[in-house]
């Protein structure tokens, strides 16, 4: 028997029972749609987090004071030596470091005329924009300048600019932080998501000015942009060695993006697999549905099976014909399910546009493969029952 003839024969039998065929296809479709949609959401969650890290800068090392053994969570703990501007200068000069930025953070209210908004004020240098890959919507970022000079320039996050200036052009305007006056030189392009800070709701001033305004002598963080990704570990060791020598103690923590990213990635992969596992349950239910339908079909079509045997169909051919029906049912459900799942994900994304969910290609392939396997696995038993029928009894139609 030719393969195409086999498929046509099986499809013809399925067309004979449209309602039953439709229902079992729908059963598989729901299972496959669940697999596709849930993997899309799981993958979306993973990509969302990865994007957050990329937004931080993919070659980023973060140096913070204090020693904590754990990586993978934001460390905090007892400070023995603070990070200083001189530490920063030393780090910046390391050979594998492309650029570095110091960071001082305080929260204060920024005033423009009678409006005020309490926001994180970040003291840093011009390099910060490059290290954190920030884009400027208008004006420019903090001007490059010697570390010891202060300067009264301020750069606003998009949200701060919107709230304070209500659509007016902030460039060149003067805002106040406490009793200090700053001239707005730039507004950042909207960034939205970032793990640590909402960049849109921050303002930036030069590091020396921030230390003076907030009466700080030490740095909150040093951000290091490593020359190339493969040198991350080496650079991390360089930084640790340098600061150990300078502090005469092992009292800073250097965390890499990769460590955090790997930890999150692992968690989210587990999440995705859990979701797929849940979806697979519905697929198994659909498989049992197919088995049920095929068993009913075999019982109903005893006379047909008897006839096929009488006209010389071999057992293998009867088996193949019924197995083909089961596989076609499942595959039909698989195709419908992928469409349904993709549609559901699109609908979800239209409600939550910032969530980057789309069914990954491997999931679509796996879903179709899975439906094929379900059809074959759950179709074998009914098909074997068909081949085992005694043709004499089958033809008697009882």
């Amino acid at each position, binding site marked *: *028997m*030719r393969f195409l*003839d086999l498929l046509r*024969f099986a499809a*013809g*039998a399925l*067309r*004979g029972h449209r309602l039953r065929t439709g229902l079992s296809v729908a059963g598989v479709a729901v299972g496959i749609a669940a697999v596709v949609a849930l993997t899309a959401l799981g993958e979306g969650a993973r990509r969302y987090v990865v994007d957050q890290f990329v937004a931080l800068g993919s070659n980023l090392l973060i140096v913070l004071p204090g020693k904590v053994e754990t990586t993978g969570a934001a460390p905090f703990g007892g400070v023995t030596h603070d990070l200083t501007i001189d530490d920063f200068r030393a780090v910046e000069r390391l050979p594998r470091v492309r650029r570095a930025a110091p960071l001082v953070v305080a929260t204060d209210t920024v005033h423009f005329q009678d409006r005020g908004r309490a926001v994180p004020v970040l003291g840093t240098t011009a390099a910060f924009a490059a290290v954190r890959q920030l884009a400027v919507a208008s004006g420019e970022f903090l001007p490059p300048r010697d570390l010891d000079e202060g300067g009264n320039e301020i750069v606003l996050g998009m949200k701060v600019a919107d709230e304070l200036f209500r659509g007016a052009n902030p460039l060149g305007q003067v805002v106040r932080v406490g009793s200090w006056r700053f001239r707005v030189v730039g507004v950042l392009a909207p960034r939205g998501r970032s793990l640590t800070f909402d960049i849109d709701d921050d303002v930036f001033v030069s590091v020396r000015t921030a230390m003076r305004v907030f009466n700080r002598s030490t740095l909150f963080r040093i951000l290091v942009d490593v020359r190339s990704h493969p040198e991350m570990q080496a650079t991390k060791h360089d930084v640790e060695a340098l600061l150990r020598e300078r502090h005469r103690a092992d009292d800073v923590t250097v965390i890499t993006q990769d460590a955090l990213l790997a930890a999150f990635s692992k968690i989210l992969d587990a999440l995705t697999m859990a979701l797929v596992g849940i979806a697979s349950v519905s697929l198994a239910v659909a498989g049992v549905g197919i088995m049920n339908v095929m068993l009913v079909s075999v019982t109903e079509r005893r*006379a*047909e099976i*008897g*006839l*096929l*045997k*009488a*006209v*010389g*169909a*071999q*057992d293998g*051919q009867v088996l193949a014909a019924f197995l083909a029906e089961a596989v076609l049912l499942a595959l039909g459900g698989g195709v419908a399910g992928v469409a349904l799942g993709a549609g559901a994900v699109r609908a979800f994304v239209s409600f939550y546009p910032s969530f980057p969910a789309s069914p990954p290609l491997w999931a679509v392939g796996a879903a179709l493969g899975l439906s094929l396997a379900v059809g074959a696995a759950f179709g074998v038993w009914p098909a074997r029952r068909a081949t085992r029928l*005694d*043709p*004499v*009894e089958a*033809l*008697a*139609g*009882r």
Partner: protein
Amino acid sequence: MIRLDDVWRIFTVGDAEVHALKGVTLAIERGEHVALVGPSGSGKSTLLHILGCLDRPTRGRYTLEGREVGALSEAERSLIRRNRIGFVFQFFHLLARLPALGNVELPMLFAGVTAEERRERAARTLAAVGLSHRAHHRPDQLSGGERQRVAIARAVVMEPAVLLADEPTGNLDRAAASEVMELLEGMNARGLTLVVVTHDPAIAARARRVVRLSDGEIQGSGVRGPGSGHDTTPTGTRTTVPDPRLGGG
């Protein structure tokens, strides 16, 4: 061409043994037209199933065209059914979802004949049974007589050596029955061996030879003289031994 030597068919139902055939010995020559008659449960259907390789003798030898087929594997027997044997049933057994042409194509489908050749041969065979104009009608759009003619076309499309018909007119009115029998006799006249199971004396009377079964045994086998109109076989006693798998009749 067909030889049965002391063929027994014994069914086991629970602890009891039912003897459906008791030592049947029978020879049918190429091109014969034989009627198997007998009351319900006399074993004539069981005999036909054994002749058609749908069932195996419990004991005894069945030789078809010189091959002992009772001992062959199931795969080989299905090849014999495909290539050497045609079946016609009382209830037609057409697939309702396929048109007449598709039903006639069915045996060729499993034989792996190409689509074009299938179509061509099925159309030719349908023409031979006078149903070219109904080729694209489904069974439910055909009359009983037409359905049985489609079934006959399906039975002969593989050009078998023997055609086995189980009550082929049992579900037809007199006119349709006569048409169907004329068709079968025409094929028999061109050399096809024909074995008809019937309990209709009028149908049996058309056969060259009548084999009468009763209680699983051949009661008599007579060759009817042409035009005599009378069966020379003694009438068997009425006993009922149903094929227990069929639950009666």
